[in-house]
């Protein structure tokens, strides 16, 4: 029996990037994985694809109903879907852009936690209780102001604190549900497609990689491994905490600089 046999997981944004790597690792660990994404998953990708818009409350209700109906339980939610929404600064970001980024990156995570908790509580009492782990993908942009566009920094800052509130609430209620945030630095995923198109993939990755003390960007699997650990019972005492995987980006002063500064 594999570690996550009998576990059911939802990964939002599971069709690409960190999400797709997480889906693969959770599936390899034995979990039944639901790939919830607005874009279709690759044909040979593991997991069961369900079309899902994280910014829509109706879509969340439908997703949870479908998963509980087909899989009978929910143990793991990875709120991974996110957008950067371009490179707006405090002076150029419009209210419309702000609201769109807020809807996906902040409200999407809020709705995910809310409906996942409801779903995890429904698992049992006639079945083994859900182990309940929610992993919210925030960003180093929540920690340092240079690592993202303005609205993205704000939304990821919201996710950082929301995760702690959810963790404390579930602990107080003795739901057995944990909640943590993950803060990636630069990861080689399609979120950087505009940059790859402008510079070429190799050159773009070398440029962004050079900002990280470790000298390279992360692979999606680097983050997937961290998320897998947080999702599993090996992290049973871990809740309300922040997990940074950023190649040293936010660890201190380095000869290599942050994004966007000289």
């Amino acid at each position, binding site marked *: 029996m594999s570690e996550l046999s009998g576990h059911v997981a939802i990964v939002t944004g599971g069709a690409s990037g960190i999400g797709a790597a997480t889906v693969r690792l959770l599936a390899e660990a034995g979990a039944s994985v639901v790939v919830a994404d607005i874009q279709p998953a690759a044909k040979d990708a593991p997991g069961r694809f369900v079309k899902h818009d994280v910014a829509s*409350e109706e879509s969340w209700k439908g997703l949870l109903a479908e998963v509980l109906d087909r899989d009978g339980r929910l143990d793991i939610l990875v709120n991974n879907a996110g957008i950067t929404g371009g490179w707006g*600064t*405090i*002076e150029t*970001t419009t*209210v419309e852009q*702000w*609201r769109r980024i*807020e809807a996906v990156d*902040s*409200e999407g995570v*809020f*709705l995910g*936690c*809310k409906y996942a*908790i*409801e779903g995890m509580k429904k698992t049992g009492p006639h079945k083994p209780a859900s182990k309940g782990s929610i992993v919210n993908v925030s960003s180093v*942009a*929540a*920690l*340092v*102001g*240079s690592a*993202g*566009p*303005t*609205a993205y*920094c*704000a*939304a*990821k*800052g*919201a*996710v*950082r*604190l*929301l*995760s*702690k*509130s*959810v*963790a*404390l*609430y*579930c*602990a*107080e209620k003795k739901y057995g549900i944990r909640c943590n945030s993950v803060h990636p630095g630069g990861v080689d995923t399609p979120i950087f497609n505009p940059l790859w198109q402008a510079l070429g993939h190799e050159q773009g990755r070398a440029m962004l990689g050079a900002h990280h003390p470790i000298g390279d960007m992360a692979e999606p699997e680097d983050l997937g491994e961290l998320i897998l650990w947080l999702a599993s019972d090996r992290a049973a005492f871990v809740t*309300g905490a922040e997990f940074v995987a950023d190649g040293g980006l936010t660890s201190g002063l380095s000869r290599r600089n942050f994004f*966007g*500064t*000289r």
Partner: protein
Amino acid sequence: MVLLSGGASGIGAATARLVVREGGKAVVADRDEAKGRALAEELGKAALFVPLDVTDEPAWQKAVAATVETFGGLHGLLNAAGVGVRNSIEDCSLEDYRRVNDVNSMGTFLGCKHAIPAMAKTIREKGGAGSIVNISSVLGLRGASYAMAYCASKGAVRSLTKNVALHCAQMKYGIRCNSVHPGYIDTPMIAPRLSATVDNMSGRQWLEELHPLGRLGQAEEVANMILFLLSDESGFSTGSEFVCDGGLTA
């Protein structure tokens, strides 16, 4: 010349009084017209009231324009308007979540967005330095099970502040931006909680005991920290978190 959102009451009003006492001009911007006008009248010629709903972008543009027109420029911005709402992840609706984030987080974004060009212009033409102070909270540093949406909105303000600080530094505008993280302050925002009963204690006693100093903070105590951040005395501080919480997060 300081523009203060939420300037009619609590931390905003205490700061407006302090700014005027120290020889500055205060523009009291608030949704509460009666209170705002009364305070501006009390403060005399050094103060002006402008109506402001912080979620309304044109209202921000008008408030900034009125400040520049009346006092000839803008050097300081205090984003103090905020709503305190109790809700958990289970009982918060999407509407509640959006409302709290709109006022606390988007309101701060809009304030920074529209003050920065006016501040940069003032500094270019008249000299001096600019400073933005955003009121976050200890709940922007620590989670609270009973204030999920509020925590999210104040976490957003904390991260937004650093982004604004670095943008202004990079553009060499001469504008600094910092966040202030008060504990529970004896202001109208928490009045409903003081009279409630928690764990067989009065709400006031419960909140007082959260703080190692054993009491609530006073608006003037936070205003003193804000004045320091608005002034050139804090000239090398930007993108930082300033905590005023009676030891709560220690």
